[in-house]
Protein backbone atom coordinates (compact mmCIF):
# COMPACT_ATOMS: atom_id res chain seq x y z
CA UNK A 1 0.00 0.00 0.00
CA UNK A 2 1.26 3.51 -0.74
CA UNK A 3 2.19 5.50 2.31
CA UNK A 4 0.81 8.92 3.14
CA UNK A 5 2.34 11.87 1.32
CA UNK A 6 3.58 14.51 3.73
CA UNK A 7 2.82 17.76 1.97
CA UNK A 8 1.36 21.25 2.35
CA UNK A 9 -2.29 21.83 3.24
CA UNK A 10 -2.89 23.53 -0.15
CA UNK A 11 -1.59 20.52 -2.05
CA UNK A 12 -3.33 17.99 0.20
CA UNK A 13 -6.70 19.65 -0.53
CA UNK A 14 -5.95 20.28 -4.23
CA UNK A 15 -4.97 16.64 -4.77
CA UNK A 16 -7.74 14.97 -2.80
CA UNK A 17 -10.90 17.09 -2.74
CA UNK A 18 -12.94 17.46 -5.93
CA UNK A 19 -16.15 19.29 -6.73
CA UNK A 20 -19.10 17.01 -6.09
CA UNK A 21 -17.29 14.80 -3.58
CA UNK A 22 -18.84 13.45 -0.41
CA UNK A 23 -16.66 14.72 2.36
CA UNK A 24 -16.51 13.78 6.05
CA UNK A 25 -14.89 16.30 8.37
CA UNK A 26 -14.97 14.62 11.76
CA UNK A 27 -13.87 15.51 15.27
CA UNK A 28 -16.39 15.29 18.11
CA UNK A 29 -16.02 18.79 19.62
CA UNK A 30 -12.31 17.99 19.91
CA UNK A 31 -9.76 18.10 17.04
CA UNK A 32 -12.15 19.64 14.51
CA UNK A 33 -10.30 20.16 11.20
CA UNK A 34 -10.92 23.91 10.91
CA UNK A 35 -7.80 24.85 8.95
CA UNK A 36 -8.51 22.14 6.36
CA UNK A 37 -12.12 23.31 6.06
CA UNK A 38 -10.92 26.86 5.48
CA UNK A 39 -8.57 25.70 2.75
CA UNK A 40 -11.45 23.85 1.05
CA UNK A 41 -13.43 27.12 1.15
CA UNK A 42 -10.45 29.08 -0.24
CA UNK A 43 -10.00 26.64 -3.10
CA UNK A 44 -13.64 27.22 -4.01
CA UNK A 45 -14.81 23.60 -3.87
CA UNK A 46 -18.52 23.29 -4.52
CA UNK A 47 -21.38 20.87 -4.88
CA UNK A 48 -20.03 18.91 -1.91
CA UNK A 49 -21.98 16.47 0.24
CA UNK A 50 -20.76 17.49 3.68
CA UNK A 51 -20.91 14.78 6.32
CA UNK A 52 -20.41 15.40 10.01
CA UNK A 53 -22.12 14.12 13.17
CA UNK A 54 -21.98 17.54 14.79
CA UNK A 55 -21.89 20.29 12.18
CA UNK A 56 -20.65 23.31 14.08
CA UNK A 57 -18.94 26.54 13.08
CA UNK A 58 -16.77 25.00 10.35
CA UNK A 59 -19.83 23.64 8.51
CA UNK A 60 -21.68 26.92 9.13
CA UNK A 61 -18.81 28.59 7.29
CA UNK A 62 -18.62 26.06 4.45
CA UNK A 63 -22.39 26.13 3.93
CA UNK A 64 -22.51 29.93 4.11
CA UNK A 65 -19.73 30.17 1.53
CA UNK A 66 -21.65 27.98 -0.90
CA UNK A 67 -19.51 24.80 -0.80
CA UNK A 68 -22.34 22.39 -0.01
CA UNK A 69 -25.17 20.79 -1.95
CA UNK A 70 -26.15 18.33 0.76
CA UNK A 71 -25.60 17.92 4.49
CA UNK A 72 -25.56 14.58 6.33
CA UNK A 73 -25.65 15.12 10.10
CA UNK A 74 -27.06 14.17 13.48
CA UNK A 75 -26.77 17.36 15.57
CA UNK A 76 -26.29 20.79 14.03
CA UNK A 77 -25.68 23.60 16.47
CA UNK A 78 -23.17 25.87 18.15
CA UNK A 79 -22.56 23.82 21.31
CA UNK A 80 -23.65 25.62 24.45
CA UNK A 81 -24.44 28.77 22.45
CA UNK A 82 -27.35 28.17 20.07
CA UNK A 83 -28.18 27.87 16.39
CA UNK A 84 -25.95 27.67 13.35
CA UNK A 85 -27.39 30.69 11.56
CA UNK A 86 -25.80 29.99 8.16
CA UNK A 87 -27.00 26.39 8.21
CA UNK A 88 -30.50 27.54 9.16
CA UNK A 89 -30.51 30.24 6.47
CA UNK A 90 -29.64 27.61 3.86
CA UNK A 91 -32.32 25.17 5.08
CA UNK A 92 -35.05 27.74 5.78
CA UNK A 93 -34.37 30.29 2.98
CA UNK A 94 -32.05 28.59 0.43
CA UNK A 95 -29.21 31.10 1.03
CA UNK A 96 -26.71 31.08 -0.55
CA UNK A 97 -27.91 27.81 -2.11
CA UNK A 98 -30.60 25.24 -1.38
CA UNK A 99 -29.27 22.59 0.99
CA UNK A 100 -30.53 19.03 0.88
CA UNK A 101 -30.39 17.35 4.29
CA UNK A 102 -30.06 13.75 5.39
CA UNK A 103 -30.67 13.64 9.10
CA UNK A 104 -29.75 10.91 11.56
CA UNK A 105 -29.13 10.28 15.25
CA UNK A 106 -25.60 10.11 16.69
CA UNK A 107 -25.99 6.40 17.37
CA UNK A 108 -26.91 5.79 13.73
CA UNK A 109 -24.03 7.80 12.27
CA UNK A 110 -21.50 6.23 14.62
CA UNK A 111 -22.74 2.79 13.58
CA UNK A 112 -22.67 3.77 9.89
CA UNK A 113 -19.04 4.91 10.10
CA UNK A 114 -18.11 1.70 11.85
CA UNK A 115 -19.89 -0.32 9.15
CA UNK A 116 -18.01 1.69 6.51
CA UNK A 117 -14.69 0.95 8.18
CA UNK A 118 -15.68 -2.71 8.48
CA UNK A 119 -16.50 -2.97 4.78
CA UNK A 120 -20.15 -3.83 5.39
CA UNK A 121 -22.98 -2.53 3.21
CA UNK A 122 -25.06 -1.34 6.13
CA UNK A 123 -25.14 -0.78 9.86
CA UNK A 124 -27.56 -2.70 12.06
CA UNK A 125 -28.42 -1.45 15.52
CA UNK A 126 -31.23 -0.99 18.06
CA UNK A 127 -32.37 2.52 17.28
CA UNK A 128 -34.89 4.93 15.76
CA UNK A 129 -37.59 3.34 17.89
CA UNK A 130 -40.91 5.21 17.84
CA UNK A 131 -39.65 8.51 16.42
CA UNK A 132 -40.34 10.49 13.25
CA UNK A 133 -36.86 10.42 11.68
CA UNK A 134 -37.60 7.36 9.49
CA UNK A 135 -40.57 9.29 8.03
CA UNK A 136 -38.28 12.04 6.68
CA UNK A 137 -35.21 9.97 5.79
CA UNK A 138 -35.81 7.00 3.46
CA UNK A 139 -32.31 5.67 4.16
CA UNK A 140 -33.50 4.67 7.62
CA UNK A 141 -34.97 1.20 7.27
CA UNK A 142 -35.18 -1.97 9.35
CA UNK A 143 -34.18 -5.62 9.28
CA UNK A 144 -35.38 -8.58 11.27
CA UNK A 145 -32.83 -10.46 13.32
CA UNK A 146 -32.70 -13.97 11.73
CA UNK A 147 -32.18 -15.55 15.15
CA UNK A 148 -34.54 -13.69 17.49
CA UNK A 149 -36.95 -11.95 15.13
CA UNK A 150 -36.20 -8.59 16.75
CA UNK A 151 -36.77 -5.63 14.44
CA UNK A 152 -33.53 -3.63 14.21
CA UNK A 153 -32.73 -0.35 12.51
CA UNK A 154 -30.53 -0.37 9.41
CA UNK A 155 -28.91 2.45 7.49
CA UNK A 156 -26.34 2.34 4.67
CA UNK A 157 -22.69 2.24 5.67
CA UNK A 158 -20.91 5.59 5.53
CA UNK A 159 -18.45 5.51 2.63
CA UNK A 160 -17.28 9.08 1.95
CA UNK A 161 -15.03 9.95 -0.97
CA UNK A 162 -12.77 11.85 1.40
CA UNK A 163 -12.30 11.95 5.18
CA UNK A 164 -10.61 15.00 6.68
CA UNK A 165 -9.39 14.95 10.29
CA UNK A 166 -6.95 16.80 12.54
CA UNK A 167 -4.77 15.04 15.15
CA UNK A 168 -1.94 15.79 17.52
CA UNK A 169 1.01 14.14 15.78
CA UNK A 170 2.36 12.29 12.80
CA UNK A 171 5.77 10.69 12.60
CA UNK A 172 8.06 11.12 9.61
CA UNK A 173 6.78 7.91 8.01
CA UNK A 174 3.25 9.31 8.13
CA UNK A 175 1.77 7.29 10.99
CA UNK A 176 -0.77 9.36 12.93
CA UNK A 177 -1.62 9.45 16.66
CA UNK A 178 -4.97 10.50 18.17
CA UNK A 179 -5.45 11.20 21.89
CA UNK A 180 -8.25 12.39 24.17
CA UNK A 181 -11.80 12.39 22.83
CA UNK A 182 -11.28 10.34 19.68
CA UNK A 183 -14.81 10.54 18.25
CA UNK A 184 -15.31 8.70 14.96
CA UNK A 185 -12.14 9.86 13.22
CA UNK A 186 -10.49 6.46 12.95
CA UNK A 187 -13.67 4.96 11.48
CA UNK A 188 -14.12 7.92 9.09
CA UNK A 189 -10.59 7.54 7.67
CA UNK A 190 -10.92 3.77 7.30
CA UNK A 191 -14.35 4.16 5.66
CA UNK A 192 -13.23 6.77 3.11
CA UNK A 193 -11.64 6.32 -0.32
CA UNK A 194 -9.12 9.09 0.35
CA UNK A 195 -8.10 10.97 3.48
CA UNK A 196 -6.36 14.13 4.60
CA UNK A 197 -4.90 14.42 8.08
CA UNK A 198 -3.66 17.74 9.42
CA UNK A 199 -1.49 17.51 12.55
CA UNK A 200 -0.17 19.85 15.20
CA UNK A 201 3.37 18.65 14.56
CA UNK A 202 5.47 16.03 12.83
CA UNK A 203 7.76 14.24 15.25
CA UNK A 204 10.45 11.54 15.24
CA UNK A 205 8.61 9.29 17.68
CA UNK A 206 4.84 9.23 18.34
CA UNK A 207 5.46 7.94 21.88
CA UNK A 208 1.95 6.60 22.17
CA UNK A 209 2.30 3.38 24.16
CA UNK A 210 1.17 -0.09 23.08
CA UNK A 211 -2.58 0.66 22.97
CA UNK A 212 -2.48 4.16 21.50
CA UNK A 213 -4.98 5.04 18.80
CA UNK A 214 -2.82 5.10 15.68
CA UNK A 215 -3.71 5.25 12.00
CA UNK A 216 -0.93 3.63 9.98
CA UNK A 217 0.63 5.67 7.19
CA UNK A 218 -0.77 3.34 4.53
CA UNK A 219 -4.39 4.17 5.51
CA UNK A 220 -3.92 7.89 4.79
CA UNK A 221 -3.58 9.82 1.50
CA UNK A 222 -1.98 13.07 2.63
CA UNK A 223 -0.66 14.64 5.82
CA UNK A 224 0.04 18.32 6.43
CA UNK A 225 1.50 19.94 9.54
CA UNK A 226 -0.87 22.75 10.59
CA UNK A 227 -0.19 24.03 14.11
CA UNK A 228 -3.41 25.31 15.74
CA UNK A 229 -5.26 23.62 12.89
CA UNK A 230 -8.22 22.76 15.14
CA UNK A 231 -8.73 26.30 16.50
CA UNK A 232 -11.26 27.34 17.87
CA UNK A 233 -11.86 23.74 18.92
CA UNK A 234 -9.02 22.20 20.85
CA UNK A 235 -6.16 19.77 20.65
CA UNK A 236 -5.72 17.73 23.83
CA UNK A 237 -2.22 18.35 25.18
CA UNK A 238 -1.69 21.42 22.96
CA UNK A 239 -4.33 24.12 23.50
CA UNK A 240 -7.80 24.45 25.07
CA UNK A 241 -11.12 25.03 23.35
CA UNK A 242 -11.69 28.75 22.81
CA UNK A 243 -15.20 28.94 24.22
CA UNK A 244 -15.23 32.71 23.77
CA UNK A 245 -14.80 32.29 20.01
CA UNK A 246 -17.86 30.02 19.87
CA UNK A 247 -19.84 32.70 21.70
CA UNK A 248 -18.45 35.48 19.46
CA UNK A 249 -19.45 33.52 16.33
CA UNK A 250 -23.16 33.86 17.04
CA UNK A 251 -23.53 37.58 16.15
CA UNK A 252 -21.09 37.26 13.22
CA UNK A 253 -23.13 34.47 11.65
CA UNK A 254 -26.56 36.01 12.23
CA UNK A 255 -26.23 38.47 9.38
CA UNK A 256 -25.29 37.53 5.79
CA UNK A 257 -23.18 40.64 5.19
CA UNK A 258 -21.34 40.47 8.51
CA UNK A 259 -20.65 36.81 7.86
CA UNK A 260 -19.29 37.37 4.35
CA UNK A 261 -17.11 40.28 5.53
CA UNK A 262 -15.69 38.19 8.37
CA UNK A 263 -14.96 35.26 6.07
CA UNK A 264 -13.30 37.55 3.57
CA UNK A 265 -10.90 39.09 6.06
CA UNK A 266 -10.30 36.01 8.27
CA UNK A 267 -10.28 33.20 5.71
CA UNK A 268 -10.26 34.27 2.06
CA UNK A 269 -7.46 36.78 2.43
CA UNK A 270 -5.28 34.49 4.48
CA UNK A 271 -3.02 31.66 3.49
CA UNK A 272 -3.42 27.98 4.34
CA UNK A 273 -2.79 27.30 8.01
CA UNK A 274 -2.49 30.98 8.90
CA UNK A 275 -5.38 30.70 11.33
CA UNK A 276 -8.32 32.96 12.03
CA UNK A 277 -7.32 34.48 15.37
Amino acid at each position, binding site marked *: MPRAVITSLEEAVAENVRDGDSLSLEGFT*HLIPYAAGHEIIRQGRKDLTLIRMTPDIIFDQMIGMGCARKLVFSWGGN*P*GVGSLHRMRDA*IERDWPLPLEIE*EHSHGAM*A*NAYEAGAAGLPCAVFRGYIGND*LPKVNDRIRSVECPFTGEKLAAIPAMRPDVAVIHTQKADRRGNVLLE*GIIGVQKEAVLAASRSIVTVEEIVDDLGGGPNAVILPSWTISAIAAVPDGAFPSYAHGYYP*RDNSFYKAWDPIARDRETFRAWMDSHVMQRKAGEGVQ
Partner: protein
Amino acid sequence: MSDRGYTADEMMTVAASRALQNGQVCFVGIGQPSAAANLARQTHAPDVVLIYESGTLETRPDVLPLSIGDGELAETALTNVSVPEMFRYWLQGGRIDVGFLGAAQVDRFGNINTTVIGGTYLKPKTRLPGAGGAPEIATSARETFILLRQSPRAFVEKLDFITSLGHGNGGNSRAEAGARTLGPTRLISDLCQMAPDPETRELIVTTIHPGVTRDQITAATGWDIRFADSVTETPVPEPTELAVLREIHARTARAHAGQA
Protein backbone atom coordinates in the same frame (compact mmCIF):
# COMPACT_ATOMS: atom_id res chain seq x y z
CA MET B 1 -33.62 35.66 42.76
CA SER B 2 -36.87 35.37 44.69
CA ASP B 3 -37.17 36.39 48.33
CA ARG B 4 -36.84 32.69 49.10
CA GLY B 5 -33.11 32.98 48.57
CA TYR B 6 -32.86 30.85 45.45
CA THR B 7 -33.98 31.07 41.83
CA ALA B 8 -36.49 28.88 40.02
CA ASP B 9 -33.64 27.47 37.94
CA GLU B 10 -31.74 26.57 41.10
CA MET B 11 -34.82 24.82 42.47
CA MET B 12 -35.11 22.86 39.22
CA THR B 13 -31.44 21.87 39.21
CA VAL B 14 -31.48 20.83 42.87
CA ALA B 15 -34.66 18.77 42.42
CA ALA B 16 -33.12 17.07 39.39
CA SER B 17 -29.87 16.34 41.20
CA ARG B 18 -31.79 14.67 44.04
CA ALA B 19 -33.43 12.35 41.54
CA LEU B 20 -30.06 10.72 40.86
CA GLN B 21 -29.05 8.03 43.31
CA ASN B 22 -25.54 7.32 44.48
CA GLY B 23 -23.94 4.59 42.38
CA GLN B 24 -26.21 4.97 39.38
CA VAL B 25 -24.73 5.17 35.91
CA CYS B 26 -25.99 8.32 34.23
CA PHE B 27 -25.74 9.35 30.57
CA VAL B 28 -25.66 13.14 30.80
CA GLY B 29 -27.01 15.69 28.32
CA ILE B 30 -25.40 19.10 28.07
CA GLY B 31 -26.72 22.23 29.85
CA GLN B 32 -29.14 21.88 32.77
CA PRO B 33 -28.79 18.06 33.01
CA SER B 34 -25.03 18.46 33.27
CA ALA B 35 -25.36 20.97 36.11
CA ALA B 36 -27.78 18.70 37.97
CA ALA B 37 -25.69 15.54 37.51
CA ASN B 38 -22.53 17.24 38.73
CA LEU B 39 -24.35 18.78 41.68
CA ALA B 40 -25.48 15.28 42.65
CA ARG B 41 -21.92 13.99 42.34
CA GLN B 42 -20.61 16.78 44.55
CA THR B 43 -23.30 16.40 47.22
CA HIS B 44 -25.33 13.28 48.01
CA ALA B 45 -24.08 10.96 45.26
CA PRO B 46 -20.27 10.95 45.22
CA ASP B 47 -20.19 7.59 43.45
CA VAL B 48 -22.65 8.41 40.68
CA VAL B 49 -21.03 7.50 37.35
CA LEU B 50 -21.31 10.24 34.74
CA ILE B 51 -20.98 9.43 31.06
CA TYR B 52 -21.10 11.93 28.19
CA GLU B 53 -21.76 10.90 24.60
CA SER B 54 -18.37 12.21 23.46
CA GLY B 55 -16.94 9.02 24.97
CA THR B 56 -15.88 10.19 28.42
CA LEU B 57 -16.49 7.36 30.85
CA GLU B 58 -16.80 8.06 34.58
CA THR B 59 -15.87 11.71 34.24
CA ARG B 60 -15.53 14.07 37.21
CA PRO B 61 -15.40 17.60 35.77
CA ASP B 62 -14.52 20.44 38.11
CA VAL B 63 -16.21 23.00 35.86
CA LEU B 64 -19.28 22.45 33.69
CA PRO B 65 -18.52 21.83 30.02
CA LEU B 66 -19.85 24.29 27.43
CA SER B 67 -19.85 21.54 24.83
CA ILE B 68 -20.40 17.81 25.15
CA GLY B 69 -16.72 17.16 24.45
CA ASP B 70 -14.78 19.78 26.41
CA GLY B 71 -11.22 18.90 27.40
CA GLU B 72 -12.24 19.02 31.06
CA LEU B 73 -14.43 15.95 30.52
CA ALA B 74 -11.64 13.94 28.90
CA GLU B 75 -8.99 14.95 31.42
CA THR B 76 -11.08 13.98 34.45
CA ALA B 77 -12.49 10.76 32.96
CA LEU B 78 -11.53 7.26 34.02
CA THR B 79 -11.07 6.52 30.33
CA ASN B 80 -12.16 7.85 26.96
CA VAL B 81 -13.70 5.58 24.35
CA SER B 82 -14.66 6.17 20.72
CA VAL B 83 -18.13 7.42 19.90
CA PRO B 84 -19.13 4.16 18.14
CA GLU B 85 -18.02 2.23 21.24
CA MET B 86 -19.96 4.63 23.46
CA PHE B 87 -23.21 4.11 21.58
CA ARG B 88 -22.78 0.40 20.90
CA TYR B 89 -21.24 -1.12 24.03
CA TRP B 90 -22.20 1.30 26.75
CA LEU B 91 -25.60 2.67 25.73
CA GLN B 92 -27.05 -0.04 23.46
CA GLY B 93 -25.28 -2.66 25.60
CA GLY B 94 -27.55 -1.75 28.51
CA ARG B 95 -25.00 -0.24 30.88
CA ILE B 96 -26.88 3.01 31.53
CA ASP B 97 -29.31 3.37 34.44
CA VAL B 98 -30.49 6.92 33.83
CA GLY B 99 -30.52 9.07 30.70
CA PHE B 100 -30.71 12.74 31.64
CA LEU B 101 -32.27 14.68 28.77
CA GLY B 102 -33.09 18.28 28.00
CA ALA B 103 -35.53 19.21 25.22
CA ALA B 104 -36.95 22.05 23.18
CA GLN B 105 -40.50 20.73 23.44
CA VAL B 106 -42.21 17.94 25.29
CA ASP B 107 -45.76 16.58 25.15
CA ARG B 108 -48.02 15.03 27.79
CA PHE B 109 -46.45 11.60 27.23
CA GLY B 110 -42.88 12.79 27.56
CA ASN B 111 -42.11 12.54 23.85
CA ILE B 112 -39.41 15.05 22.91
CA ASN B 113 -38.93 17.34 19.92
CA THR B 114 -35.49 18.79 19.17
CA THR B 115 -35.83 18.83 15.36
CA VAL B 116 -38.24 21.36 13.84
CA ILE B 117 -41.02 23.73 14.96
CA GLY B 118 -43.68 25.07 12.59
CA GLY B 119 -43.81 24.96 8.81
CA THR B 120 -42.87 21.64 7.28
CA TYR B 121 -39.89 19.39 7.95
CA LEU B 122 -38.13 20.60 4.80
CA LYS B 123 -39.09 24.25 5.27
CA PRO B 124 -39.55 24.65 9.01
CA LYS B 125 -40.30 27.91 10.77
CA THR B 126 -37.58 27.05 13.27
CA ARG B 127 -34.85 24.56 12.59
CA LEU B 128 -33.56 23.08 15.89
CA PRO B 129 -30.20 21.26 16.22
CA GLY B 130 -31.67 17.78 15.76
CA ALA B 131 -31.42 14.44 17.47
CA GLY B 132 -27.86 14.04 18.74
CA GLY B 133 -27.73 11.01 21.00
CA ALA B 134 -31.22 11.48 22.43
CA PRO B 135 -33.32 8.99 20.38
CA GLU B 136 -31.21 6.05 21.48
CA ILE B 137 -30.67 7.39 25.02
CA ALA B 138 -34.47 7.63 25.29
CA THR B 139 -34.92 3.96 24.40
CA SER B 140 -31.72 2.29 25.65
CA ALA B 141 -31.22 3.84 29.10
CA ARG B 142 -33.17 1.92 31.75
CA GLU B 143 -35.14 5.10 32.51
CA THR B 144 -34.93 8.77 31.58
CA PHE B 145 -35.39 12.04 33.42
CA ILE B 146 -36.42 15.10 31.42
CA LEU B 147 -35.32 18.54 32.56
CA LEU B 148 -37.03 21.56 31.01
CA ARG B 149 -38.20 25.06 31.95
CA GLN B 150 -41.98 25.13 31.84
CA SER B 151 -43.86 27.35 29.35
CA PRO B 152 -46.73 26.87 26.89
CA ARG B 153 -44.22 26.98 24.01
CA ALA B 154 -42.18 24.13 25.50
CA PHE B 155 -44.99 22.01 27.00
CA VAL B 156 -47.21 21.54 23.98
CA GLU B 157 -50.44 19.69 23.17
CA LYS B 158 -48.95 18.20 20.00
CA LEU B 159 -45.34 18.00 18.89
CA ASP B 160 -44.48 19.03 15.34
CA PHE B 161 -41.89 16.24 15.29
CA ILE B 162 -41.08 13.35 17.61
CA THR B 163 -37.29 13.17 17.86
CA SER B 164 -37.12 10.92 20.91
CA LEU B 165 -39.77 8.51 22.12
CA GLY B 166 -41.35 8.96 25.51
CA HIS B 167 -44.57 7.10 26.23
CA GLY B 168 -45.80 7.42 22.63
CA ASN B 169 -49.57 7.77 22.58
CA GLY B 170 -49.80 6.54 26.16
CA GLY B 171 -50.83 3.18 27.58
CA ASN B 172 -48.67 0.39 26.19
CA SER B 173 -47.75 2.21 22.98
CA ARG B 174 -44.10 2.67 23.98
CA ALA B 175 -43.56 -1.06 24.43
CA GLU B 176 -45.57 -1.79 21.27
CA ALA B 177 -43.19 0.47 19.31
CA GLY B 178 -40.39 -1.87 20.40
CA ALA B 179 -38.88 -0.04 23.38
CA ARG B 180 -37.81 -2.40 26.18
CA THR B 181 -36.98 0.25 28.76
CA LEU B 182 -39.04 2.36 31.17
CA GLY B 183 -38.85 5.69 29.32
CA PRO B 184 -39.45 8.99 31.10
CA THR B 185 -40.09 8.23 34.77
CA ARG B 186 -39.77 11.82 35.86
CA LEU B 187 -39.93 15.33 34.45
CA ILE B 188 -38.42 18.17 36.44
CA SER B 189 -39.30 21.77 35.54
CA ASP B 190 -38.74 25.10 37.22
CA LEU B 191 -42.28 24.89 38.63
CA CYS B 192 -42.89 21.27 39.57
CA GLN B 193 -42.09 17.62 39.08
CA MET B 194 -44.18 15.21 37.05
CA ALA B 195 -44.35 11.43 36.74
CA PRO B 196 -46.31 9.21 34.35
CA ASP B 197 -49.69 7.92 35.42
CA PRO B 198 -49.19 4.14 35.88
CA GLU B 199 -51.91 3.28 33.34
CA THR B 200 -52.33 6.11 30.86
CA ARG B 201 -48.63 7.11 31.04
CA GLU B 202 -49.66 10.75 30.88
CA LEU B 203 -47.33 13.02 32.86
CA ILE B 204 -49.08 14.32 35.96
CA VAL B 205 -47.85 16.76 38.58
CA THR B 206 -46.56 14.99 41.69
CA THR B 207 -44.69 17.74 43.58
CA ILE B 208 -44.95 21.52 43.35
CA HIS B 209 -41.97 23.73 44.06
CA PRO B 210 -42.40 26.05 47.10
CA GLY B 211 -44.29 29.25 46.29
CA VAL B 212 -45.64 27.99 42.95
CA THR B 213 -49.42 27.78 42.45
CA ARG B 214 -51.47 25.26 40.51
CA ASP B 215 -52.72 28.10 38.32
CA GLN B 216 -49.16 28.98 37.36
CA ILE B 217 -48.50 25.40 36.32
CA THR B 218 -51.74 25.17 34.35
CA ALA B 219 -50.97 28.45 32.58
CA ALA B 220 -47.47 27.28 31.69
CA THR B 221 -48.67 23.99 30.17
CA GLY B 222 -50.04 23.66 26.63
CA TRP B 223 -52.21 20.68 27.48
CA ASP B 224 -54.87 20.20 30.13
CA ILE B 225 -52.43 19.32 32.91
CA ARG B 226 -53.56 16.95 35.63
CA PHE B 227 -52.43 16.81 39.23
CA ALA B 228 -51.85 13.65 41.25
CA ASP B 229 -54.34 12.84 44.02
CA SER B 230 -51.73 13.60 46.66
CA VAL B 231 -49.50 16.41 45.47
CA THR B 232 -46.70 17.34 47.86
CA GLU B 233 -44.42 20.35 48.09
CA THR B 234 -40.92 19.84 46.68
CA PRO B 235 -38.45 20.12 49.57
CA VAL B 236 -36.59 23.44 49.45
CA PRO B 237 -32.94 23.47 48.41
CA GLU B 238 -30.57 22.95 51.33
CA PRO B 239 -27.95 25.65 51.96
CA THR B 240 -25.20 23.14 51.11
CA GLU B 241 -26.81 22.28 47.78
CA LEU B 242 -27.10 25.95 46.85
CA ALA B 243 -23.54 26.68 47.95
CA VAL B 244 -22.11 23.80 45.93
CA LEU B 245 -24.22 24.65 42.86
CA ARG B 246 -23.20 28.31 42.97
CA GLU B 247 -19.58 27.38 43.39
CA ILE B 248 -19.82 25.08 40.34
CA HIS B 249 -21.32 27.92 38.28
CA ALA B 250 -18.75 30.44 39.56
CA ARG B 251 -15.84 28.11 38.71
CA THR B 252 -17.37 27.49 35.31
CA ALA B 253 -17.79 31.22 34.58
CA ARG B 254 -14.18 31.89 35.61
CA ALA B 255 -12.87 29.03 33.50
CA HIS B 256 -14.82 30.04 30.38
CA ALA B 257 -14.00 33.74 30.76
CA GLY B 258 -10.33 32.91 31.11
CA GLN B 259 -10.10 31.70 27.52
CA ALA B 260 -9.74 34.74 25.30
